[in-house]
């Protein structure tokens, strides 16, 4: 924006300036503290990598483009095809199942861990560090690690046998009934530290005096949790569940490494079949349609979660 234009803009909004209490002319001066072209490099990279490709991808979702010169607009055909595609339907179901169960279980365990490690127990700082540590590992490495742990006769089976729980041994990744849950368990192991840390930050933001007062009023531990902790954790619960839900909807690395979607279609996810359709089969249009469905679900969940959890929140 040119200086002349900037001045015209600031002059046009002049009447607002006096409202900036005790700082006559402050608003006009502040407006000129940074040049607009400072935004340009960031916007350029962001537009090339995120904005343009996302818009283009949204368009390709309605075409039959398969990498050649021609991309014909075919309306909703790709989405109709998804309904008849057994792998696509299974991946939609699995993706939602993963997102819901990961969010519930991981947030629940994360909250329990945070409550335990927010108390005055010994080694709590060391335990916090340890439980957050897997978050630092590349997801693909965690996938390889758990793939090995789950191998028949591998570490998990050996450990269960040694504990006298041999009866629980399963074909962890080989059975289409169990494989999805095995993957979910490994992702919880990987990410539970993140939920824990968000809840710990939330718990530490609750004034200690509230518990003291509640205790004086005769409230037991459970009553204190329900009347003080839970309502004041609203913000942390929103953040932790929204983050877990959106990231687990996009789950790719661990599934790609551990099962590749199998056995059959029992662990297919939307991001997995999107990758396969687009980059293995070259079905760019169909792949983009799957990506658009994923985008709509993520957007829907974000809005749903915001409106639901915000309502129950207490402004702390």
């Amino acid at each position: 924006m040119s200086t002349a234009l900037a001045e015209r803009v600031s002059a046009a909004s002049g009447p607002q300036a006096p409202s900036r209490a005790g700082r006559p002319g402050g608003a006009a001066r502040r407006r000129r503290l940074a040049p607009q072209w400072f935004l340009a490099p960031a916007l350029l990279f962001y537009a090339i990598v995120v904005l343009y490709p996302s818009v283009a991808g949204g368009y390709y979702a309605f075409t039959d483009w398969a990498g050649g010169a021609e991309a014909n607009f075919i309306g909703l055909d790709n989405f109709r095809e998804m309904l008849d595609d057994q792998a696509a339907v299974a991946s939609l179901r699995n993706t939602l199942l993963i997102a819901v169960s990961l969010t519930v279980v991981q947030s629940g365990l994360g909250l329990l861990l945070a409550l335990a490690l927010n108390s005055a127990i010994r080694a709590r700082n060391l335990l916090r560090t340890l439980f957050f540590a897997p978050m630092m590992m590349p997801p693909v490495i965690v996938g390889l690690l758990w793939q090995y742990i789950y191998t028949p006769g591998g570490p998990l089976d050996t450990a269960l046998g040694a504990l006298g729980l041999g009866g629980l041994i399963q074909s962890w990744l080989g059975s289409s009934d169990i494989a999805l849950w095995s993957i979910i368990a490994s992702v919880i192991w990987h990410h539970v530290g993140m939920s824990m840390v968000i809840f710990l930050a939330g718990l530490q933001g609750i004034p200690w005096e509230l518990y003291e007062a509640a205790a004086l009023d005769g409230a037991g531990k459970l009553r204190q949790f329900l009347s003080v902790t839970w309502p004041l954790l609203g913000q942390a619960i929103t953040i932790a569940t929204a983050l877990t839900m959106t990231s687990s909807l996009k789950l790719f690395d661990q599934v790609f490494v551990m099962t590749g979607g199998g056995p059959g279609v029992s662990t297919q996810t939307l991001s997995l079949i999107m990758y396969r359709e687009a980059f293995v089969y070259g079905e760019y249009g169909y792949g983009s349609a799957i990506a658009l469905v994923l985008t709509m679900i993520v957007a829907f969940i974000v809005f749903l979660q915001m409106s639901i959890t915000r309502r129950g929140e207490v402004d702390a």
Partner: protein
Amino acid sequence: MSATATRIATSAVTATAAPRRRRFRHGYGRPLLEVAMIPITIAYLFPLYIMVSMSFKTTSEIASSTVAPPQSLFLGNYETAWVSAGLGRAMLNSLLITAVSITIAVLIGAMAAFAIVRGNRRTSTWKLMLFLLGLMIPGQLGMVPLYILMRDAGLLQTHASLIIFYVGSLMPMTVFLYTGFLKTQSPTYEEAAKIDGAGWWKAFFHVVFPLLRPVTGTVIIVNTINTWNDFLTPLLYLAGTENRTLPVAVFSFQGEFASEWGLIFAGMMIAALPVLIVYFFLQRHVIQGFAGGLKG
């Protein structure tokens, strides 16, 4: 704060008693909880133990037991992974791509935040919203067009393709963190610099950027970990080339060295250790960065 909470808070002020606090904190539940945490922690650390112990085991040790600790500190797996399997080169690729991407992202992200927060105030919310939109859009939506763009530009299989990708995709989080912080700072210093006749660059480098230092730490930590650990995009752009990053290289071990698990685990350790070591030194900053980064 709700009415109940306020009432509780008020009664707390009138009834604080130090000895009570101590008794409350060290309640009878504590030893029980400590005992309960022991098996939970052991179970949680079991996968990490497997990863470390496997990387030091010989093939015959692995064959006899997958759980038993290694007999000696056998380093052969690391040697093979580093030298013959080319992880040294992959490590250099990862370091180069991460360092260049983060440096550019920090610089232009801070500039953008400066322009958004201290620029035209009427449009600042819209500019910020435009960047925040990127936090919601899954990368999958733009994956095909971006791949085609990189291919047509002749950038596939080069470091540059990934650096461009990371700088662009890190912008939403980076701009979000920087604007959130800059909004809480008074513009006094920048105004003073302006009055003293400092140009845009001078004001930015000598006043604004130093001011942003606390949040720059968070930006570097969060972005570095996400970039270093990324897998899908480097797989798409760099798989099968000399330029591949550590996670891609280690993933390809699985196919190249079918069941040589000792070697694969040494590779996994090499890929995971750099970040883990930094984490154990800077743990408080890292944890605060992740927790605080989200709250903004």
